[in-house]
């Protein structure tokens, strides 16, 4: 049974910020939604409300960074790059300010629909020079995200999970180091964020059906060391499949595709994710099923990749976890 952890970011940020006086807590009117409301109440001297004004917030943080502060920006991921893209580029990314952008609700992890779903953030941030990208996939990674982000000499964008989440790993994020979750020889599965839990469920069923799975979990998406993943690609017979909480263009599927193309790897690659589409509002489980981001989609993808029917059913994918739209942690779901 997977351990479920409630609001790990809240504790992680407080611990990190108190140990680092130059860390500032920046909020854009989503303070409790980003689990920093207790921090606001308890440590007002280290907290700055920026209101719903993301363009000013980004340039303001550039100014804080110029003075040597390390602001942690807290808002939904989508609000950190869509509206204030130019400010993010000119005031933070270009001059390599140590601004730590904590983007909550990555991909379809919100019932908020298109306006709240950061489905192309990795693609945007990957193309931004000087930007580092980290992504959290479980409670342990959320617990270590502040320290990991703050170790970067430059700006960082983090896809952060919130509320209740499973603990899948027992070691913190080591920037630049992917997690090797299984080392089989038939197919390589590459996941990040919430799709890793899906892949763990799929892996069990696939192994039962006789497919030897090699599974990698990425928490550092940029910069990326191609060498390590090439070794894994070369270790499987049947090809590579990626599953991401993001559009397939520009995300980890593209990342793997680029590495394969750059290195002349002639293996099959199947990229699963949002396929040139926006999503709509709904529970995470519903959206993951509807858009083909869950364990079943992955096993079906592997079938296609290997060209064989495995007849894995939903019942085979045991321990499915279903989140309610209205969680106890946040009544509005936003």
């Amino acid at each position, binding site marked *: 049974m997977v351990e479920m952890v409630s609001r790990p970011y809240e504790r992680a940020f407080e611990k990190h910020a108190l140990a680092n006086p130059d860390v500032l807590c920046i909020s854009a009117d989503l303070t409790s939604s980003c689990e920093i409301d207790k921090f606001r109440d308890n440590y007002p001297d280290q907290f700055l409300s920026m209101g719903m004004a993301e363009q000013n917030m980004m340039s303001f943080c*550039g100014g804080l960074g110029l003075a040597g502060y390390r602001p942690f920006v807290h808002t939904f991921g989508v609000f950190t790059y869509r509206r204030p893209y130019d400010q993010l580029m000119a005031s933070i990314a270009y001059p390599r300010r140590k601004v730590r952008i904590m983007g909550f609700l990555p991909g379809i992890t919100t019932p908020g629909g298109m306006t709240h779903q950061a489905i192309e953030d990795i693609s945007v941030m990957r193309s931004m020079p000087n930007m580092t990208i980290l992504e959290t996939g479980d409670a342990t990674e959320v617990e270590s995200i502040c320290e990991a982000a703050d170790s970067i000499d430059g700006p960082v964008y983090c896809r952060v999970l919130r509320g209740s989440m499973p603990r899948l790993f027992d070691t913190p994020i080591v920037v630049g180091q992917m997690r090797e979750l299984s080392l089989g020889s038939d197919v390589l599965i590459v996941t990040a964020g919430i799709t890793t839990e899906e892949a763990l469920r799929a892996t069990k069923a696939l192994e039962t059906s006789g497919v030897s799975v090699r599974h990698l979990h990425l928490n550092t998406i940029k910069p990326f060391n191609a060498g390590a993943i090439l070794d894994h690609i070369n270790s499987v017979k049947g090809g590579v499949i990626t599953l991401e909480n993001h559009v397939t263009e520009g995300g980890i599927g593209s990342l793997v595709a680029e590495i394969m193309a750059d290195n002349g790897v002639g293996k099959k690659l199947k990229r699963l994710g949002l396929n040139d589409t926006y999503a709509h509002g709904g529970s995470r489980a519903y959206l993951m099923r509807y858009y083909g981001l869950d364990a079943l989609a992955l096993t079906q993808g592997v079938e296609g990749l290997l060209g064989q029917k495995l007849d894995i059913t939903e019942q085979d994918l045991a321990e499915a976890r279903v989140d309610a739209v209205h969680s106890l942690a946040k009544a509005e779901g936003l």
Partner: protein
Amino acid sequence: MKNEKSTEDVALGIRRRVFEHAIRNNGGYLSQACSAAEQLAWLYNEELNLGEPTLPMIPKLFEGVPHADNPNYHTGAGYNGPFLPEFDRLFIAPAHYALVAYATLIETGRMAAEGLEMFNKDGSSVEMIGAEHSPGMEVHNGTLGIGLSTAAGLAWARKKRGEKGRVWVYMSDGEVQEGQTWEAIQCCAHHRIDNVKAIMDVNKQQCDGAMDSVMEVGDIKTKMENFGAIVVEVDAHNLNDMREAAKTKHDGKPLIILAHSNPFHSMPILEERFPRLHYVRFKSEEERARMNLSIADALGVDPIDYAH
């Protein structure tokens, strides 16, 4: 730095250098020199508390953009002196005023005159639109509206650290069309950031022409006051006006000086080009020759010999 020239002389020198540059290069930001010369001259020659320049008088060539693997990267802030707690910082928000800003650095002894010859040349750091690495620049402001926000962040940080140095912003009135400007003012007021001071060149011009034909912005003063700034209106060509305005108390609020300027002040012939004043490129040799004689006469200097 010790003022060797009067501020009036610095302002004339700025216009003279920009005029020379524009005639020689068949175009330039002439109108910006007309409207801004006294403002920048007054800032650098009187109001700003800056240390001695820390960068070479002749600017370095472009040494690359900020990158983890580029140890040579530098900003142009050193021309405004060292970043020390007691000294002021200046952000020039409309980066296309760079030519005027560079001329100011030369007139106040912070950059060699040769620096202007590097303007907009390939491989030079003296860029046409001032970049971070350009003399006198510290942050990117090429897109309008960014400057005041960045200044607010720096100012908040300096206040928290107990630093005496203020953060000045040189702004242009077109920036009030950008929503970020209003975000920045309300942010300063909310957080009582009162070590920010801005002077805005209200010349009522923008790239497409006269502001009231492109996007009417209404009463800037009232709007800014409603968003939480202390605002003083001055004649941009009257130094005493600016001196007095800068003394205005603004506890807990940013101070913004609206400097109403004439975009052809000291070069009346430019009025012929109204409302296309953003970048004056001469339409013919005849116009170039005529403007050369007229502007030289208005400034009280010799016409430029640009034949060779």
